[in-house]
């Protein structure tokens, strides 16, 4: 492993200064479960790791009934799934962070890290997209927000510029009669990278008989996680039925452009998009019915 320097930044501005100075030779260290492996396996070279776990804003969870959730980007998964507010409002996010890599990895890995690593197969990103999450970024020229669906631009690449870093993820409060769901397909029962991942959120009418709106997002079937816009829109105003859910699944399949690699074949992935979209939508619908 190459030699590098390490700094535990104490403030956002300190982190920004270092990132601006070093450019792509510095990298933010959160849980380290991706970064350390990449440097060790020589898939990434850097001179400096900037540990952000001591910066308060990046590690806090705050939730209230008007603003929704502000999730510090460096918060490890286990603090997310043990948080009662997040469990009740965003079960789909809990689905995702409970299955990233095993209990030991969840002791360190963070949603911010998952976003910034920008793997096409990241588990948390489809879950965030369907929750209308936004990414709060701070940089030398100030702060800005990017929708989670626009955060990843290519495998391993994000929309952040030099000197910028992700401080928190914001999720609006859930609407009434809504819920959300994430699932993935893997060859074993745990510890694998998603072959396909699908997140779904639904808002139902008062009687839980029809969709008011829905969001569907896909992982591991394109260079970045995808928001399935057409599939999502076609559910709006429709009565809940297997037929309409199938239509949405087919529309989701239509935008998937998977590759064949050592984790799955393109045909398999295309097929699984249909299967998982149906299961994710049904899962979200059932959650609405069960919780209210």
């Amino acid at each position, binding site marked *: *492993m*190459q*030699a*590098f*320097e*390490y700094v*535990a930044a104490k403030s956002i501005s300190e982190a920004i200064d270092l990132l601006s100075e070093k450019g792509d030779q510095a990298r933010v*260290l959160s*849980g*380290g*479960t991706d970064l*350390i*492996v990449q*440097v*060790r*396996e020589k898939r990434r070279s850097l001179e400096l*790791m900037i*540990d952000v*776990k001591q910066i308060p804003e990046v590690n806090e969870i705050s939730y209230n009934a008007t603003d929704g959730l502000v999730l510090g980007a460096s918060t*490890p998964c*286990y603090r997310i799934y043990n948080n009662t507010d997040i469990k009740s409002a965003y079960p789909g996010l809990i689905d995702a962070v409970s299955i990233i*890599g*095993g*209990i*030991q*990895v*969840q*002791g*360190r890995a963070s949603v911010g890290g998952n976003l910034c690593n920008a793997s096409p197969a990241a588990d948390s990103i489809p879950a965030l997209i369907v929750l209308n999450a936004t990414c709060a970024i701070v940089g030398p020229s100030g702060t800005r927000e990017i929708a989670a669906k626009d955060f990843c631009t290519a495998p391993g690449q994000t929309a952040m510029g030099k000197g910028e870093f992700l401080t928190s993820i914001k999720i609006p409060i859930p609407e009434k009669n809504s819920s959300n769901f994430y699932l993935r397909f893997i060859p074993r*029962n*745990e*510890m694998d990278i998603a072959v396909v991942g699908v997140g779904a959120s639904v808002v139902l009418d008062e009687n839980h008989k029809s969709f008011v709106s829905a969001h569907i997002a896909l992982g591991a079937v394109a260079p970045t996680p995808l928001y399935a816009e057409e599939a999502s829109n076609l559910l709006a105003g429709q009565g809940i039925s297997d037929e309409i859910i199938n239509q949405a699944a087919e529309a989701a399949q239509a935008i998937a452009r998977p590759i064949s690699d050592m984790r799955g074949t393109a045909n398999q992935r295309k097929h699984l998009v249909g299967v998982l979209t149906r299961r994710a939508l049904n899962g979200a619908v059932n959650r609405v019915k069960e919780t209210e």
Partner: protein
Amino acid sequence: MPKKTHVQTEINGEGVEFLCEPRQSLLEVLRDELHLTGAKEGCNNGNCGACTVRLGDRIVNSCLVLGVEAEGQKIETIEGIATSEGLHPIQQKFLEHAALQCGICTPGFIVSSKALLEQNPTPSEEDIRFWLAGNLCRCTGYHKIVEAVVDAAKSMNAEVADNG
């Protein structure tokens, strides 16, 4: 050679200091600098759990933590689990149930199981298997490991009941 960082931390209840390069993982520090060789390297990329230690209030793969990140933290390793009173019930049950064959994964499993039972004193078999999915064993097929954890939970709960 790159300059080393001085780190102060607490391991198994004792204050510890060491020097390490930033690129040295906590696993390397434990084994090569502090000679706490109970945590093992099986894969060095977070997929086998043989290096599991407790960092703060969670179990982690020490191969995915830098030694320098241990600054100011509390760490528990396999070496800290038995006390002067004797073996921990989990250790005892692993022995009674023959839940080890070559034993290389055993420290990781014991650290992980202890964390599970502290978090959930009455886990189902499914809970146990899910929690331990991050610890690979190639010898036992996990059957006796799960039996040992179930029995350890019973034993620890009985103790609590007795003392309660």
